[in-house]
């Protein structure tokens, strides 16, 4: 989520602040740094994904590539492809429409509680999709809040899916676009006005072109996330709506047509590759000089009725779109007298789990901590390798690190099950499988957050240290570490939050006796009865609170640095 935002900073720093690094023979060291990340992605990403695709397309030792044409020619599959693209486009447009005013307000207005609110709008992004689906079901589903009040039901309509997607990705736009917007020098627009341009013309001629690439990057990220949407569509879509990712899941898990699933995985792979390529292109195009200023200088208290109305409008949007679904979740979790649903979480006689549901909290925290450690190690090494100006090869490596964000988590999960079950990597029954899968999603965040900061470290400092006789390790400890410590913490926080919420892959590999929070929520939801439903709401609320606390801490860390974090 903050990836695009940090890239903005990255581009900005390279053009404004970062001294040009002299070329020097660092490629051996770089290769050294890349070894572990490459091995990690090879073993825990490429290998499992390839294994499940091969398993689907290779029948009795021979390749059955005819299946590709067959599957793509199927009218039902083409309908899925069409719907996937259509809903992603509409979701993206809707998100931009609703979130851009929010980006402006967060960038340019100063008001009380702004930092807290910024953390609050980010909470949905790190929530597991099951929980988001559940929150919307409680809001617009049968017997939901809207149903009770006005008899309005949106479940099994496409509107529920679109709204949930906006809810989910609001923060992507606010943070990516708003982050840059806050740093654009408002005096440029004022200068244009003084030269006689109307407010609209000044905005269109000055601000919009500067913001354009950030908007494009945010749009592409939203498109990527909605294109690969799984939990939301699965819960809210009913039997009629299906995205590519949901279809891969159905074909693998329910119909057991591995060939079709493999073809669809390849299709999604190509689509995601394209989206990431366009994204990389817009990022590079953005590397034009922008006059950036300290964000704290551009925000002021709203003046005049118009600005207050805009602020009010954005606050209402945030309340209705984000706080209401989250609030309904909390309200439903308290629907039993005396915290009944929370108390029920501590008992193990529901028959669903072998353990009390509350133990999922401990499992989740342990797994997420391990995943964070792995993601920091792998992502940190990768970011260090990418720090110095790089050629095509390394840029390719950069893009490779992003792929796990867009490749079917279901495929990864099943891939883990069938690929990592033999010595020397017989991890099938080991708990480490879950953190490994979660780390795959965490690494891109770590890289995106660390990279701009590492690139901003003045190379001359490192050189000076080396000249004075410091070992590379000492240079890193004395020069790099103090400067990136904060970024490291932020990266850790994000990796932790996304690991905590990871569902798609975890659902296949989490062992029945060690469920994670999202898995436990999904399983409780799949069972009938008030008590199970209430417990699902209570667990979701706990998960939400943990994520929110993590984000609030991050927001505190961010404030005293005027740059990107």
């Amino acid at each position, binding site marked *: 989520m903050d990836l695009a935002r940090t890239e903005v900073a990255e581009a900005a720093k390279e053009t404004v602040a970062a001294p040009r690094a002299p070329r020097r023979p660092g490629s051996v060291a770089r290769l050294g740094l890349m070894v*572990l990340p490459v*091995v*990690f992605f090879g073993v825990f990403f490429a290998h499992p994904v390839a294994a499940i695709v091969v398993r689907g397309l290779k029948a009795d030792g021979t390749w059955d590539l005819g299946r590709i044409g067959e599957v793509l020619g199927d*009218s*039902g599959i083409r*309908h899925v492809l069409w719907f996937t693209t259509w809903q992603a486009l509409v979701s993206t447009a809707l998100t931009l429409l609703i979130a851009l005013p929010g980006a402006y307000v967060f960038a340019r207005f100063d008001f009380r509680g702004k930092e807290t609110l910024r953390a609050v709008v980010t909470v949905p992004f790190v929530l597991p999709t099951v929980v988001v689906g559940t929150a919307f079901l409680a809001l617009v589903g*049968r*017997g939901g809040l809207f*149903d009770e009040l006005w008899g309005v039901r949106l479940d099994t309509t496409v509107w529920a899916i679109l709204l949930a997607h906006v809810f989910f990705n609001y923060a992507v736009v606010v943070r990516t676009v708003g982050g840059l917007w806050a740093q654009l020098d408002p005096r440029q627009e004022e200068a244009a006005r003084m030269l006689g341009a109307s407010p609209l013309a000044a905005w269109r001629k000055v601000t919009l072109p500067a913001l354009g690439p950030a908007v494009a990057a945010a749009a592409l990220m939203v498109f990527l996330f909605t294109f690969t949407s799984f939990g939301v569509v699965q819960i809210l879509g*009913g*039997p*009629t709506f299906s995205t590519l990712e949901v279809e891969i899941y*159905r074909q*693998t*898990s*329910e*119909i*057991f*047509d591995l060939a079709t699933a493999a073809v669809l995985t390849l299709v999604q792979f190509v689509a995601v590759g394209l989206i990431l390529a366009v994204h990389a292109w817009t990022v590079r195009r953005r590397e034009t000089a922008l006059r950036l200023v300290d964000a704290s200088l551009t925000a002021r208290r709203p003046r005049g009725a118009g600005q207050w109305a805009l602020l009010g409008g954005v606050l209402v949007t945030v309340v209705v779109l984000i706080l209401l679904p989250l609030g309904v979740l909390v309200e439903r979790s308290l629907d039993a007298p005396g915290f009944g649903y929370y108390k029920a979480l501590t008992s193990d006689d529901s*028959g*669903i789990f*072998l353990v009390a549901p509350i133990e999922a909290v401990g499992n989740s925290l*342990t797994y997420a*901590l*391990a995943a964070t*450690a*792995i993601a920091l*190690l792998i992502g940190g090494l990768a970011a260090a390798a990418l720090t110095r100006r790089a050629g095509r090869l390394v840029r390719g490596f950069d893009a490779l690190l992003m792929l796990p964000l867009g490749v079917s988590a279901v495929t990864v999960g*099943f891939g883990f*099950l*069938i690929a990592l*079950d*033999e*010595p*020397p*990597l*017989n*991890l*099938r*029954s*080991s*708990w*480490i499988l879950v*953190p490994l899968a979660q780390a795959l999603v965490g690494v891109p965040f770590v890289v995106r957050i660390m990279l701009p900061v590492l690139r901003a470290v003045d190379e001359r400092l490192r050189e000076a240290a080396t000249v004075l006789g410091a070992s590379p390790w000492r240079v890193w400890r004395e020069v790099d570490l103090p400067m990136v410590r904060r970024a490291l913490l932020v990266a850790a926080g994000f990796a932790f939050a996304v690991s905590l919420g990871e569902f798609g892959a975890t659902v*296949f590999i989490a*062992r*029945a*006796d060690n469920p994670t929070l999202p898995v436990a929520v999904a*399983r409780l939801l*799949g*069972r*009938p*009865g*008030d008590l199970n439903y209430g417990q699902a709401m209570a667990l979701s609320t706990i998960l939400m609170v943990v994520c929110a606390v993590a984000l609030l801490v991050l927001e505190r860390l961010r404030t005293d640095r005027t740059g990107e974090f």
Partner: protein
Amino acid sequence: MHITKKATVLVVGLGLVTLSACGSSGSGDSGTGSKTVTLVSHGSFAYSKDVLKAFEKESGYKVKVLKSGDAGQAVNQAILTKDNPQGDVFFGVDNTLLSRALDNGLFQPYEAKGLDKVGAEYQLDQDEHRVTPIDSGDICVNYDKAYFSKNKIEPPQSFDDLVKPEYKDLLVTENASTSSPGLGFVLGTAAKYGDDGWEGYWEKLKANGVKVVDGWEQAYYQEFSGSTDGKKAGGDRPLVVSYASSPPAEVVYADPKPKTAPTGVATGTCFRQIEFAGLLSNAKNAEGGKALIDFLISKKFQEDMPLNMFVYPVVEGASVPAEFTEYGPAAKDPETMAPEKIAENRDQWVKSWTSLVLK
């Protein structure tokens, strides 16, 4: 476990080189030792703890149960992991998916002790004994008694009835590609109307306003007006595809218990489902697995099943609880279909059904 976890976190923090070592130290805990036998099943598997304890005491084995997903998912996951299975015995493959499990070599043969007391009509793999029948149940349309008496309409009895105008917009069923009762109902119509007639029947059913939802839980607890939860949720469909044992379940779980079940069964709309257990091909504790399968068809477990999973025992002489006979009428000649025939046609039928009914 916790010490292993912490240690591993540390090791991972230092470098991933020792990862494989951690893997094996982790698996030492997974219960594959000779004194533990692991049963893999779907999410609906349920039992009385006392009964299982009695088995553990008699046999000396400790039983570990791993449940995940619905029946179809559990079977598929078991097939994908069959080279290095998660357990020793798998329970919960039914006749609609049996061929998939057998064709993929999921099970190894074992002729369970006490199999002679299991009716021949349940033994669908009698020649090779790769699976052992454990329970049976009938997938049937259930109706909301209150709705039909209030509106002075006779509840439907047969497949033919369901397409009549008086039952327009009343039936909710499950997605045949994602739900086992949904699939069973489609197979029931295929058995009844034949390869050429079932699609025409579904066209009529669709024209008569059948509603399709993804899973049984949603259909029964949300849409069906006759179930306790469905009433609460404002369900407005008085006909639902469920089980013949659902009416007794409504009584057993009600507080206070009603004199008669609030729901009834359209006895001419049933399809017979049989669930099996088998010894996994690469079971690490085959001996324990065999003992466990013997136990699953012992009278003790068979008589414990009905009120836990709402299924019927398959062993002769195992008594059925009074609630079943009192509140749940038995199906009249349920439709059946040979597993080979299901295997041959299932995927194509589900595909045709999907484009016919959902698209």
